[in-house]
């Protein structure tokens, strides 16, 4: 291979989410001479950001004083909190858990907020490159991280170079910050190579699906925040909903399912739609229209699953490291604080050494420690989970024990070992009809003639082993209907094969996490491909 062209920076940041942007902004605030760039695989900043989102504003106050006079679009203060236990047809109001008290917090579109932060970073001199995917890691001869390799453009599905072929360049820097978000594909490689998770529990995840609706006038009560647990989940499936009322008759609705669910027949996307069609919920949306929809995995492991976040030449920050606070259902403030802490640390220790300790001594980690036992308490089911959550909340996390986390893909039971509960799911009335109709609202676009970016190591396992053992759960957990088992035709007639509709992929990473054989590897497609979310 020819020598790739190289650009040099003092710091290269991978991923323009809240963590990466906060880090870059802080780096420039501390030293305007330092050259900083951010690489982002989405075609535009914010286009592949999906979050609830209710955020705690303190990190923004700290990072961008005066931001309240120049608020991001679609940002409004929370005025009202509600917490419900849903049954199939009714609901009960529960006391709002203290972690979910949102007084003083703001409802935002995190995509719009990142798009609003980016020009402020650029004004400080940060070079931001949307549409360029960091496809590989550049290692120095001593084995340390020395930067990233940008993906080639214009490669055909068969691997050949098209007429538009353009070789990706390398970006070299003394320090690389990985803020790829949950289950970043390069972060995953780094965690493995540097054995960063050898002293922590396996990371755990959830899958969040979200829609933004234009509702009939009068249905939205701007500033209202509502969360629920219960229907349509069974007690062994962790999950819950959010509904955030925005201005201009818009409502954001979403549902998060813990990816430690045991039922191989479970369908997270369908659970979301079932919730949306609950008699007390659907009235909000009847007569309205969907503006935007998408899905994204969420990092849930918290304190006991946090890998080491430093390695020679690089740091992990944000959800890519795993600093989200699950009981609060918030990760943005933690991600931003972590990004700023990394920047401040680099101000004093150019090589990043000691960042991991600084993080573990910081309020970020204290916050995670306090709630560390709440999420794993739900392994024993909803009711014991709630009792445990109450205990942990009252005692402020002072229990002398720390509950264990287990890898989500190991939680999936084989068909023969699991009796799926009777779900009694209802006939739905609200759109979208199915997952493909939902992908339409994510405005996902991939150049069709490019290599499949969902690499399945051994498709024989899918057909010969998985079909029997788990019934091909990839066809159910993927929110974008990327995986299908289809009948072979022609010579192979009568057989079956796995068809990967990679162009539908919304880059949520669920398959990479939940596949029971861990043979699916999500890699980045051509830069600029993927969802183009509007205000998610």
């Amino acid at each position: 291979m020819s020598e790739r062209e190289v650009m040099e920076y003092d710091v290269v940041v991978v991923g323009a989410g809240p963590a990466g942007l906060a880090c870059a902004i802080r780096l420039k605030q501390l030293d305007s001479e330092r050259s900083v760039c951010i690489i982002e695989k989405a075609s535009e900043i914010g286009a592949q950001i999906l979050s609830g989102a209710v955020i705690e504003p303190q990190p923004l106050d700290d990072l961008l004083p005066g931001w309240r006079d120049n608020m991001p679009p679609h940002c409004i203060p929370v005025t009202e909190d509600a917490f419900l236990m849903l049954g199939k047809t009714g609901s009960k109001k529960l006391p709002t858990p203290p972690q979910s008290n949102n007084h003083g917090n703001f409802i935002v579109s995190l995509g719009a907020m990142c798009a609003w932060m980016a020009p402020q970073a650029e004004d400080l001199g940060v070079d931001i490159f949307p549409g360029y995917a960091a496809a590989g890691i550049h290692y120095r001869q001593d084995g340390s991280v020395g930067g990233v390799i940008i993906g080639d453009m214009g490669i055909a599905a068969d691997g050949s170079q098209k007429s538009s072929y353009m070789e990706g360049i390398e970006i070299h820097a003394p320090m690389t910050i990985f803020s790829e978000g949950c289950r970043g594909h390069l972060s995953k490689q780094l965690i493995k190579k540097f054995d960063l998770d050898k002293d922590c529990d396996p990371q755990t995840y959830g899958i969040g699906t979200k829609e933004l609706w234009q509702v009939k006038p009068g249905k939205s009560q701007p500033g209202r925040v509502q969360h629920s647990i219960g229907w349509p989940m069974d007690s062994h499936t962790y999950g819950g909903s959010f509904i955030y009322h925005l201005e201009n008759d818009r409502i954001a609705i979403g549902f998060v399912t813990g990816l430690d669910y045991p039922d191989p027949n479970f369908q997270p996307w369908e659970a979301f739609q079932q919730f949306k069609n609950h008699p007390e919920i659907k009235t909000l949306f009847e007569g309205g229209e969907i503006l935007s929809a998408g899905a994204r995995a969420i990092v849930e492991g918290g304190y006991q699953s946090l890998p080491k976040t430093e390695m020679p030449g690089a740091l992990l920050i944000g959800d890519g490291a795993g600093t989200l606070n699950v009981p609060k259902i918030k990760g943005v403030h933690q991600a931003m604080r972590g990004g700023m802490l990394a920047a401040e640390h680099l101000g004093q220790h150019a090589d990043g050494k000691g960042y991991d300790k600084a993080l573990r001594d910081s309020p970020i980690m204290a916050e995670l420690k306090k709630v560390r036992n709440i999420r794993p308490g739900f392994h024993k089911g909803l009711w014991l989970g709630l009792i445990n959550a109450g205990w942990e909340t009252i005692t402020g996390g002072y229990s002398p024990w720390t509950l264990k986390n287990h890898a989500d893909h190991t939680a999936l039971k084989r068909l023969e070992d699991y009796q799926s509960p009777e779900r009694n799911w209802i006939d739905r009335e609200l759109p979208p009809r199915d997952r493909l109709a939902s992908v339409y609202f994510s405005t996902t676009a991939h150049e069709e003639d490019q290599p499949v970016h969902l690499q399945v190591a051994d498709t024989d396992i899918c057909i010969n082993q998985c079909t029997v053992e788990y019934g091909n759960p990839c066809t159910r957990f993927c929110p974008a209907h990327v995986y299908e088992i289809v009948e072979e035709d022609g010579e192979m007639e009568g057989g079956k094969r796995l068809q990967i509709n990679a162009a539908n992929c919304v880059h949520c990473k669920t398959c990479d996490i939940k596949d029971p054989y861990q043979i699916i590897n999500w890699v980045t497609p051509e830069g600029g491909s993927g969802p183009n979310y509007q205000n998610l």
Partner: protein
Amino acid sequence: MKILVGIKRVVDYNVRVRVKPDGSGVDLDGAKMSINPFDEIALEEALRLREAGKAAEVIVVSIGPNACQQQLRTGLAMGADRAIQVDTEERLQPLAVARTFLAIAEKEQPGLFIVGKQAIDDDNSQTGQMLAALWNRPQATFASEVQVEGDTATVTREVDAGLETIEIDLPAVITTDLRLNEPRFVKLPDIMKAKRKPLEVIPLSDLGVANDNTLEIEHFAPPATREKGIMVDSAEALVTELKNRGLL
């Protein structure tokens, strides 16, 4: 020879556009914006002509508020030598756009003015033709192949009957069709170089262009939604259904 290329900032072709609930326009809130794809083809063709030694300078020009500097910078990163933003907050209709381009053409004296055959937001397909008429120069619209030799250009046009090849004297206006070329990817270091290339901002009022928009838009409405279809089991059932509806 100089080549001027008109580029318009439009909603990206991947974005699902929707009409605002009050019918006052298309909702572009949070929507990705891009160079009109046909204009991108126009720029690619200009760059190829320059690379083939047929032109010395490629200038991209856009009309609009500061936001369209983003598209001009992309044009510079693709390889244009310099950029002109005609600054206005108003939304110009094709005639006013053509008049503005004429003013720029008179100032820059290009050998070719290349624009997309239409913009994907309003789909007017008028600007290039109007510009040629106002400029009193030849035009070759819907080009799928362009060859320049000396003072003439040979252009293959996509017409209803197939392909038509014409020869025109330069200076001239060319509008580009989809098959003309495939625009290049932007190289990352070129984005940095583009930041240092000249981008001139000219207020629309300085050009003395009359912006007398002749069309008034009353309201926007989405197409009527299609009614739910039915599935029929056989050809007979289909015929029966069609007959029942008086369609056969």
